[in-house]
């Protein structure tokens, strides 16, 4: 495998790992979304590379090349088509996620995943009218969360 391909592959894999690590290690939801973007970029790159030929040309078969098919090195078009679609979808999902983050920020006032989860659990419990799953380790945030929730209710009224 030529050196350049090694560099390209390791770059793609590295991007994926960075993205995955970001998703796992970060708590800020916006950063998590960015990590997702990086992960997708890495994987897309990997896909592109799988169809890539070092000295390849665009996969358009010209009439004069018909005689000498085996001599032509073409890039594989299918991965490119795939990646194109994936990028489009990815952008859509990212936009959706971003919109959600804005809503979350507006309603919960935080971007911290841990706090969001606690608040979410609390909200679900409130909705269903059961006791909040209060953990002994985090009484403060939940108690304050509940008060906030109740005051929100009042605001709505």
């Amino acid at each position, binding site marked *: 495998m030529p050196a350049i391909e090694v560099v390209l592959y390791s770059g793609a894999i590295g991007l994926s790992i960075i993205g995955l690590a970001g998703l*796992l290690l970060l708590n800020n939801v916006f950063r*998590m979304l960015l990590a997702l973007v990086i992960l997708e970029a890495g994987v897309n790159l990997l896909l592109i590379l*799988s*169809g890539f*030929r070092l000295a390849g040309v665009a996969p358009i078969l010209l009439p004069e090349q018909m005689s000498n098919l085996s001599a032509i090195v073409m890039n594989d078009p299918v991965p490119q088509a795939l990646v194109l679609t994936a990028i489009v979808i990815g952008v859509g999902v990212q936009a959706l996620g971003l919109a959600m983050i804005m809503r979350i920020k507006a309603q919960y006032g935080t971007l911290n995943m841990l706090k969001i989860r606690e608040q979410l659990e609390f909200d679900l419990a409130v909705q269903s009218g059961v006791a909040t799953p209060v953990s002994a380790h985090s009484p403060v945030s939940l108690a304050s969360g509940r008060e906030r929730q109740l005051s929100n209710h009042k605001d709505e009224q």
Partner: protein
Amino acid sequence: MTVLDDLLLFTALASVAIIALRRFASISKFSVVVYALATVLLIKMSALGYGGEPVYSSFTVNVLGQILQWRFDALSWFFALITLVSALLAAFFMSGAWGEKYCKEHSKEAYGLLQVALILNVLSMLVLLASGDLLSLFIGWELVSWASFMMMALNPDKLARKAAIKYIVYAMAGAMAFLMAIAMTYNMTGSLDYVQVMQGMAHLSNSQIALLVSLYVMGFGIKMGVIPFHLWQAAAYAETPGAGAVFMGAISARMGLYALLVVIVQIIGLTRVAAIEIPYTFLDMQNVLAWVGALTTIIPTYIALKQNDARHLLAWHGVGQGGYMLLGVMISDSIGTAGGIMHVFNHATYQAALFMTVTAVIYRTGTSNFSKLGGLVTQMPLTFMVMVVSIIGLAGIPPMNGFVSKWLIYRALLLDGQPLLFVAAVIGTLGTILSVYKLVHNTFLGQLRLEHQEVREAPLSMLIPMLGLAIIIFATGVMPGVVLDWVAAAQIAVGIAPVEHNLGGIELVQGGLDMIWVTGIMFYGFAVGAIIFYVLGGKSKHIHQYDNYAGGHFLTSKVRYHYSNHFYAGLMHMIGGWYRNVFIKLEHALVSLVSFMSQFSENFYRSSQPVMLVAVVVVLALYFVLGSSGGAEVSAGVSLGGFNQ
């Protein structure tokens, strides 16, 4: 259309009719007629009880390559007879005054539902008894479980609800064990038809049989309430509304024994069971099962001894008596199995009678708590008489029928040379004697309470079935041959040599039993006693209850001069330490375990990083697949960039 078709169809239509008509006042009479007619239909098949050919239903279902069929043989007929007669008597019992009171206390709807539950129980039991293959057996099994659950759940009390939910969890566990066993049987033998499974069993190894037997016995044992699955039954049956408890106590739990007879005795065969050695012990599987039976006679009986409520006491005895049946069947010779099967009949008669008497007492006094009863014999002499007859049967003392079946079991144990089992069985009997005396003493004997001065005899609609049962208990005690005929036919049906018997009992060169003579001698003895007492002695004077030796204390109705609390204080002083609620603690431990695991799982689902899980599963999955395939293929498989077209 065979007679079996008629019977099943009739019962099914009757259940639909009862469901539809449950709000009408005349539903109770209607249901009595239904059970009577069903009994008539069953009696039309009575040739079965004397060794006739099995009656097949013309209705079959072919599903998933499995043919479901239904048929009646002598064993089913025997159980069906008990079922229908119990249902008839229970329906008669609840048709009159008891039903009216129940309507008043609860609602008409509740009474209708009780009738519905009863007919559904009967229908499901008939379906179970008629099953002709393992799958239809399972279907019937589940139907019976759920019909019983419906009956239990009718009582809205908190205790009853708790008992019902406990029951259904246990029943489900049993059903699941049964289902696992069926699935394995299907894969091992390629069929679920009785005959084909029986043939297939012959080719199985001992370890396979051991697995199957353990699963089947677990499934059936839970229904029977054998140790260690005995915790659910007593509370559940005791808290069932009166007339329902009569029926359930008589027959419901015996469905486990029926299935056990069919599957373990008939299909697998006790010789195969006995061939399974339990490692590191001297025991084989059959011994273990016999010991399960023996322990079931002891432990629940002594739990019954501690009960302070008549219904609970009886229900615990119901569990304990199931142990005798299992023990009898597991002795596997003709006398022992005859005893086990016959005990089903005998137990049904006296248990139904006892629940009826207790229900009658509740009907008149409103309670079955021993601390609030006493001295009712003067007010309810006939009920008392029925109870005495039944407890003599329950305790297994001649001349009532309970003695005969227990005698058969003891006799078989003797012939088999099983001293410890014999002793265990006798310990159970002695415990029974103690606790039935507690039952009769604390309800009927002793001092009559002030608030019960006006209590009258139970109404006629309740007395008639009670007295009828008392007569059956006595008559089949004196002439056990009547029942033994059916038992012998049932034994042939499950492939065991029938017991040699005559009208009075067993003829055996090594000491038999002739109940006609024994009863005759006993009554002769009582006559002699009566002569000594009445003829030789002077006339005695009847005095009031308060006219009693009281060590100088002046007795009035305010003084409770009746000993019913801590009845066997001395004995409890001695054996009380052995009541350690081990099984209850075990049950709690299981629940705690589930609770702990549940908490653990919940924390997993609450993880704050959703992606973590994806990553974990990817890594684990890749590790799994890579690990399972070995590294050599990796290099061969990797060909990134290959364009293969």
